[in-house]
């Protein structure tokens, strides 16, 4: 499925030199994963964050086309995609029977499984890893639910610091419209219905996404990721992402 946009940068023509990515200094946010040699992680980790309906998947699909067109091997990861616990996590969420700490640790397990089995090996092999959300969404969700920040930071201290993080910022009102345009329904969890903010899903969605956006702003001031105005057209957003990623690939 190739859908390279006319406006995205043209892939290099045959014979043209494919730029080799510069390696950068790597670190973990906290204690990290035991027995990992950070100096051997030559690839790049690029994260796109944003709520459902913020255009994440569209942007990631385009970035993948663009990167592969440029001759870079890519791999994608996302939340709740681990072999280890994704099924169980789904079941638990459908029944909504997990308490906050449990759900939080379940997600952390899912993340750790992908980190160790996909992200780190891919980086080691020099791949571009495109992450459809990373620890920040998980942290923001926990923070909105009143979990202890120091505890959350310790848990996600296992994460490797990405090379670039983009947060697609879309107003809650826009998100509602996009979610309805796509599937004519709001998701229970994306509406924060477990929090009892409102009995009406519509109101709850607006309130919850507002709270999430506040937490993202706070996390941005700590982790310094790029806030991208997601209310613009997909082409405009992609052009901005490409420009910034190019700088990262060239070692800034």
């Amino acid at each position, binding site marked *: 499925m190739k859908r390279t946009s006319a406006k995205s940068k043209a892939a290099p023509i045959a014979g043209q030199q494919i730029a080799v990515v510069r390696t950068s200094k790597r670190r973990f946010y*906290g*204690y990290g*994963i*035991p*027995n990992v040699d950070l100096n051997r992680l030559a690839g790049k980790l690029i994260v796109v964050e944003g709520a459902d309906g913020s255009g994440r998947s569209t942007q990631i699909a385009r970035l993948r086309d663009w990167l592969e067109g440029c001759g870079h091997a890519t791999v994608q990861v996302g939340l709740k995609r681990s*072999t*280890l*616990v994704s*099924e*169980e996590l789904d*079941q*638990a969420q459908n029944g909504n*029977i*997990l*308490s*906050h*700490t*449990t759900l*939080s*640790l*379940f997600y*952390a*397990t899912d993340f*750790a*499984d992908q980190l*160790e*089995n996909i992200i780190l090996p891919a980086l080691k092999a020099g791949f571009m890893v495109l992450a459809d959300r990373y620890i920040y969404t998980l942290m923001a969700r926990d923070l909105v639910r009143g979990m*202890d920040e*120091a*505890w959350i930071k*310790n*848990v996600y*201290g*296992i994460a490797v610091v990405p090379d670039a993080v983009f947060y697609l910022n879309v107003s809650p009102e826009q998100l509602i419209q996009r979610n309805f345009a796509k599937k004519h329904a709001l998701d229970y969890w994306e509406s924060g219905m477990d929090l009892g903010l409102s009995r009406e899903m519509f109101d709850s969605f607006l309130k919850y996404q507002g709270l999430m956006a506040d937490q993202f702003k706070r996390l941005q001031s700590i982790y310094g990721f790029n806030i991208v105005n997601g209310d613009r057209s997909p082409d405009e957003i992609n052009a901005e992402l490409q420009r910034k990623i190019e700088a990262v690939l060239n070692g800034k």
Partner: protein
Amino acid sequence: MTKTFAQLNFPGRLIAVEGLDGSGKSTQIYLLKRWLELQGLKVFFSEWNSSELVKSATSKGKKRELLTPTTFSLIHATDFADRYERQLVPLLRAGYIVLCDRYIFTAFARDTVRGCPPEWVRGLYDFAAHPDLTFFFKAQLEVSLQRILDGRPQLKYFEAGMDMRLSPDPYESFRIFQGRILEQYLGMSTEFNFTVMDANQPVETQQSIVRELIADRIDLTSYAANNPGHRK
């Protein structure tokens, strides 16, 4: 959190047993449970790694050898959190005596031996209050090993610590692994105020010491099943 449930003013009390596989701790906590419930007290027993919800993921991970030290640690923390938040805390609020066959110290010992940073592991379990009483059943390593190896000679992969590549022989691996866990337990004993039990003594001798200590530390009459749980 380093406070006990009593220090946090819970009406209930939590008693934990820790020790190597084969140290006889499960027998002791079972006898303790029988003693308490035969007196008509409100008792609940909880076992390590027993949350229904998390179980299928854990057993899949173990069966297919998918677990790394980090995911091994996280999935056990998930299991513990589920039991802690849905059972232990509500029951302790309701004035139960909760008996735990293994508590957070099991994770502190095992995960550290597997190579997880000790501070990280302790941080994971920071949401949990400490037991009001922790019995550590200290047996000679050879005695514990013999009990396990006599009973069920088919050692499981993670149980034997095979994931750490200590030895290609499961029995040898198990010996080394258990030896290291024992060292961890001994190192924690003072820090976490373990009541150390000589697990080489007869079952009955150990049980009378356990019962005596509990009767001494906990006002058992206030845990009668007809008591609504409001202690002065």
